């Protein structure tokens, strides 16, 4: 049903740490790998070995430069982007067939490929570019939060997280339940000021982004000063004799 649930028991989602992400794209590759080999239509590539390759991805890493208002060097920010599993998901309500839905138990937004007509209206309604129409299968593909991993008891417990989170070598991606105030993701969001993307669209994203930490500012100091400052102005004893002897030369 394309009516959004009033509330969801859990709010599963991701925290993405923009301070930590190194832009290696490992999450992009592991996402494509897991989601093409498992449930549903594979994530196809077009002209994969040709001059203009393109393909379906559920997670992409953009890179931005931010010029600080306070001056100084521009900061590079690597910016992974996938479905934010919005509480007020416009992609769900526009769907004419009921293929697009938000689960009331955990808030995950999914597409039932057997019902999808590939009209693309859900992709049009998403501000974040989280949905891509697979050009081979003709059905809409999106992040499932690796629903076939997180509840999969055949996997070791350590692997029961989304593929992107499991693979991130920098620890920039965190998975958890935002409905639980004591969860890792809720704590991280509170500590680091986790933010929404394009909040003016009113989608109430579940996924949060942690902004880069403020850069350190060095106080103006003469780096050589502490080394060359005389230890004593009036040396005594042996040093006093040496001082006098050297000056007399």
């Amino acid at each position, binding site marked *: 049903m394309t009516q959004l649930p009033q509330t969801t028991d859990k709010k599963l989602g991701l925290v993405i740490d923009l301070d930590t992400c190194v832009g290696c794209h490992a999450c992009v590759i592991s996402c494509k790998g897991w989601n093409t080999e498992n449930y549903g239509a594979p994530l196809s590539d077009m002209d994969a070995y040709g001059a203009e390759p393109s393909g379906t991805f559920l997670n992409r890493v953009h890179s931005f430069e931010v010029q600080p208002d306070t001056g100084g060097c521009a900061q590079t*920010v690597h910016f992974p982007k996938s479905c934010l599993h919005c509480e007020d998901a416009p992609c769900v309500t526009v769907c004419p067939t009921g293929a697009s839905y938000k689960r009331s138990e955990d808030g995950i937004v999914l597409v039932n490929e057997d019902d999808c007509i590939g*009209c*693309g209206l859900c992709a049009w309604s998403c501000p974040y570019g989280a949905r891509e129409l697979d050009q081979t299968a003709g059905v809409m593909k999106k992040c499932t939060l690796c629903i076939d991993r997180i509840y999969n008891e055949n996997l070791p417990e350590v692997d029961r997280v989304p593929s992107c989170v499991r693979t991130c070598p920098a620890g920039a991606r965190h998975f958890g339940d935002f409905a639980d105030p004591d969860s890792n993701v809720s704590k991280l969001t509170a500590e680091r000021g986790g933010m929404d993307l394009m909040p003016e669209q009113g989608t109430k994203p579940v996924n949060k982004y942690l902004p880069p930490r403020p850069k350190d500012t060095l106080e103006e100091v003469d780096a050589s000063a502490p080394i060359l400052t005389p230890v004593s102005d009036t040396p005594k004893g042996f040093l006093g004799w040496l001082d006098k002897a050297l000056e007399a030369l």
Partner: protein
Amino acid sequence: MHPAPSVIFFTVFSGLGFGFLAWLGVGIPAPQGWVAFPYYFVAFAMAVGGLIASTFHLGNPKNAIKAFSQWRTSWLSREAVMSVLTLAVMGLFAAANIFLNMPIAILGIIGAVLALITVYTTSMMYAQLKTVPRWNHWTTSLLFILLALGGGAILAADSLGTILFVGLAGLTQIYVWDAGDKRFAKRGHTMETATGLGGIGKVRMYEPPHSGTNYLLSEMVYVIARKHAIKLRIIAFVFAYVTPIVLAIFSSLVFGAYIIALVAHIAGLLAQRWLFFAEAEHVVGLYYDKR
């Protein structure tokens, strides 16, 4: 947004077809018997042809029947339901006129109202999208409805209707173009809000996520050939609005005035609808520093 020919044909011709059905429903004109057949044939061919064209835009049309199910929330589903309902009611009305010589006025009026509601549901598929600020306004729907009524009046060869509704549509069009040009900036969507990095400073693209293109860019970040937009707006305005109004005023002096008016109107509308999509900027372009 990508100006797909299938969607341009769908919106232009289904709009004209349902607009003509609305005029036929209220009895302008009110042909009876077999004479009525070509009138309804044209109206149904345009409305149904447009709807069939829209299915070429689907990636997986075999599930199309399921699109009737989600009318509670989805404007596309409502459009599917309303168009079938309109075609059914107007089909009965047409059959009674053609085969029984019996104009059932109440059925026609219901059909006319349903036809206009159908056009409204079509317009809402676009007007509902907050992600495309240019479309996300009630004047999008107003223009669709006025164009359906104006185009229907041309098909009905009604001079007053043509002058009134094509004229009102033309005025609305000027506002829609002018206000639409400013709405993206007015809504305050920027690369800074898209990335949440505005607190630090000005954001610029460093590297896109991939060297090639993708579905999002080809579908929603269409930036090709917009440089001709002003010329196309003038062409669209002269053909879709000015020409039919002038011809309607002098319809008694020009042989086949409404045929010429219709051809001009359709040519103008195709240009207008191409611009409707090609000029529409989607907010996802902000993540690519492209609009």
